[in-house]
């Protein structure tokens, strides 16, 4: 090769990141490929220039808790956002533990951001209070640009707002309203959507109880050839024959119901779309109606049977026909025998949810899910990334099996139901340790047990082997304050912690919080609470908000032998990192604690 070897000085100069180094455009382009929010965060700290380029090129931001930052501050930094996700009320709101007037209002965010964010086309709000007026403001400012609107478990708005969305947001591809509480003022919104939109891909108003007209769904199917996913409130499947026939492209469907159980002839004519691979809802489907889906079993990738009337035996029969499932959601009526069929059949399974059933007719004889079923699934379905299971019985061995075989586990949630008096193998210290040591990809971990389920030593293991886990929910774990401290000392990466039904003192909670360097959010319910929350102040530090729900007054006179307060199930602590300072919209029942 001819030519001179370049001089070292020239070479090093051309690689320099200093002034006059890499062109702005190149850096902009490179950062565009950095997707992980934490990597982005780290890159933005390199220097002022990188900070500015990150801000300009950041397309998506998730605000993990809506009181952690002010809308104005977000706007000042990220002016070119295309996608924003906001989370509101604590997860415990799903179980009725957070009063409706807690807050988490969307109004300040919409008012501040809807107009100035010129590039915004996707908005995702979770567990927030959203009013018709909020949606109106959003639509007026961004209606023409909006492609994705996700209102996830939100409340406070009505179908009037949806009509406005349907009329004005003609570029909308995703409308997601799952599990929202929506005041139903009529089904015109769906008709408007069908008439005005021709690019819709995903429509989800699952679990909303909104009434719809089948004719409007057929119209939607005709006008939106792109519709791939429909998840809706319950509608008798026999009324949807026209819609299903028209929806050639449909791949995901949930919400068909069998309101006239026992009348199979009514459902014989139901023909599902040819490309269907996700099926859910199927409310009240029983043994007699199962044959409706047999012809499609082999192609199903996702199946949701949580609302069916299937017995354990029925589950076995149906799942044996579904070898390609990636996602399965069932109630614990599936039983251990059903899970053995899953283990034998569903070798590609990645996500498994076993929900608790209430007063199932088939439940009495089967006894629910235990270590036997969990072990079978661990051995047979080694691609699993997510398990959420309500179990009646459990052993250390079952957790060890999950650790041994499920190396891809990313999210593990276990609830031990309290209906069975005798549990085979408690405490679960060694099983938990084995699982956490082996499942090195774990990011979320939830363990809700009963007193005695996990000792202080076991709780210490949870901390010690927490690895890269960022979110934990722990219920009825540990024996004393020492266990909590040992747990906290091990949690280097934990960002979000929820604790329930624990025996810890306020002082221990405060000290534990200070031990966890990455913690940004902690919610505690059921602990040894004082009337004033005085020892919680030990966790006070800059940018840290502490909010406190006092115990019931009648708890005040009850003390334990050691003179400390009893565990009170009413008391709650919410503490979180916030650039915004104290909330301006605290309800009266919530006490904010701050240094004098």
């Amino acid at each position, binding site marked *: 090769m001819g030519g001179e070897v370049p001089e070292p000085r020239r070479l090093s100069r051309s690689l320099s990141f200093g002034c006059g180094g890499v062109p702005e455009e190149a850096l902009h382009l490179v950062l565009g490929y950095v997707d992980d929010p934490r990597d982005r965060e780290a890159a933005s700290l390199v220097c002022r220039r990188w900070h500015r380029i990150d801000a300009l090129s950041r397309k998506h931001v998730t605000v993990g808790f809506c009181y952690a930052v002010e809308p104005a501050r977000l706007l000042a930094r990220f002016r070119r956002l295309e996608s924003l996700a906001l989370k509101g009320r604590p997860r415990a709101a799903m179980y009725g533990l957070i009063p409706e007037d807690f807050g988490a209002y969307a109004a300040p965010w919409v008012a501040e951001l809807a107009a100035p964010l010129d590039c915004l086309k996707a908005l995702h709000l979770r567990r927030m209070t959203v009013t018709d007026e909020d949606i109106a403001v959003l639509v007026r400012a961004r209606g023409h640009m909006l492609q994705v609107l996700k209102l996830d478990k939100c409340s406070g708005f009505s179908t009037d707002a949806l009509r406005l969305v349907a009329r004005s947001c003609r570029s909308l591809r995703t409308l997601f309203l799952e599990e929202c509480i929506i005041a139903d003022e009529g089904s015109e919104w769906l008709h408007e959507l069908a008439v005005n939109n021709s690019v819709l891909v995903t429509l989800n108003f699952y679990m909303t109880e909104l009434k719809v007209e089948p004719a409007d769904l057929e119209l939607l199917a005709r006008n939106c050839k792109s519709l791939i996913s429909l998840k809706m409130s319950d509608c008798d499947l026999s009324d949807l024959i026209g819609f299903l026939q028209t929806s050639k492209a449909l791949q995901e469907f949930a919400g068909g119901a069998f309101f006239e159980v026992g009348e199979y002839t009514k459902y014989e004519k139901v023909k599902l779309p040819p490309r269907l691979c996700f099926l859910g809802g199927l409310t009240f489907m029983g043994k007699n109606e199962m044959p409706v889906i047999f012809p499609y079993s*082999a*192609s199903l990738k996702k199946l949701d049977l949580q609302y069916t009337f299937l017995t354990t035996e029925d589950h076995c029969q149906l799942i*044996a026909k579904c*070898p*390609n499932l990636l996602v399965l959601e069932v109630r614990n009526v599936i039983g251990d025998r059903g899970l*053995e069929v899953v*283990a*034998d*059949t569903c*070798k*590609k399974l990645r996500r498994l949810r076993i929900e608790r059933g209430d007063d199932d007719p088939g439940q009495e004889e089967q006894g629910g899910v235990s*270590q*036997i079923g*969990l*072990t*079978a699934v*661990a*051995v*047979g*379905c*080694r*691609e699993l990334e997510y398990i959420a299971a309500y179990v009646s019985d459990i*052993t250390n*061995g*079952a957790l*060890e*099996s999950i650790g*041994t*075989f499920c190396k891809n586990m990313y999210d593990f949630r276990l609830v031990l139901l309290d209906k069975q008096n005798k549990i085979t193998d408690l405490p679960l210290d060694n099983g938990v340790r084995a699982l956490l040591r082996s499942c090195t990809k774990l990011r979320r971990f939830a363990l809700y047990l009963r007193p005695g389920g996990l000792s202080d030593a076991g709780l210490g293991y949870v901390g010690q082997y927490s690895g890269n886990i960022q979110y934990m929910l722990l219920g009825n774990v540990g024996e004393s304050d020492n266990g909590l401290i040992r747990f906290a000392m091990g949690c280097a990466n934990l960002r979000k912690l929820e604790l329930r039904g624990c025996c810890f003192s306020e002082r221990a909670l405060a000290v534990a919080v200070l031990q966890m360097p990455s913690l940004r959010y902690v919610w505690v319910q059921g602990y040894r609470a004082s009337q004033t929350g005085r020892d919680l102040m030990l966790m006070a530090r800059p940018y840290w908000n502490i909010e406190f729900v006092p115990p019931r007054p009648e708890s005040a006179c009850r003390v334990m032998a050691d003179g400390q307060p009893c565990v009170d199930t009413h008391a709650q602590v919410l503490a979180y990192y916030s650039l915004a300072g104290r909330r301006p919209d605290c309800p009266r029942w919530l006490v904010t604690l701050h240094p004098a």
Partner: protein
Amino acid sequence: MANADAGDGDEVILDAPGFIRVYRSGRVERFLPVDFAPPSTDAATGVSSKDVAILPDACLLVRIYLPLPPSSGSYSGKLPVLVFFHGGGFCLEHPVPALYGDAWTALQWVAAHSVGRGQEPWLTAHADLGRVHVGGESAGANIAHHAAMRAGREELGHGVKLSSLVMIHPYFLGGESSETDDMGVALLRELVRLWPVVCPGTSGCDDDPLINPMAEGAPNLASLGCRRVLVCVGGKDPMRGRGRLYCEKLKRSGWRGEVDDWEADGQGHGFHLSCPMSAEAEAQVRVIAEFLTYG
């Protein structure tokens, strides 16, 4: 159990995650990493090995091991022969019972050397064919058992007889399982599902003598064609119950011979392969060596 595997159109007939995937066409995908070890002379022990084709047309190879002579430079007399079948869950490309025929062919090949018909110099020079032992590990132990049963019905030829049978963690299934560990139960389920794939046409694990020689109606173990048997099991091996039952059945069958059994406390199936230098693995080797020496 048919899987509609989208894409290549070849139907998946068995999917054992992390282990193998078998297609209708007979194609097998293996997922366990396996390194091929070439024949060599081991630096630590001086043991030499080489691969020999015993049926060149059928690509049937055996690997022969020869220990280092003592420092005097020559062996004092002939050496006993151990014909050992390695494990690995049976061969999927050549289903059961083909491998039993191959095993028998290998034994006959060894026996042929007693009258100079064999061509292998290591055997003609050093093998004492009055002391031929057969053994195996896991699926290989299963194969060794069936070879020994056949030796009770047929002549190997040339006056050669089997002295003993050594079974390490024998791979037998079927019958009532006494397994109480949930993981063990789940692993057994997986193995039961595998058997019809490696043995098409089987009547199932419970009454197929090939996988359950203790089954009702199976050939009587009394005809086992050797004088001594050693069975090693792992205390946590899900198949340990089958190994123990084999010993009991053999003793009660009327077979005139000696049965030894040995159990490695707390160890799983094939533990000596995953931790060959562990104390338990060395203990197992000592037990086998003493058993072979005595015979």
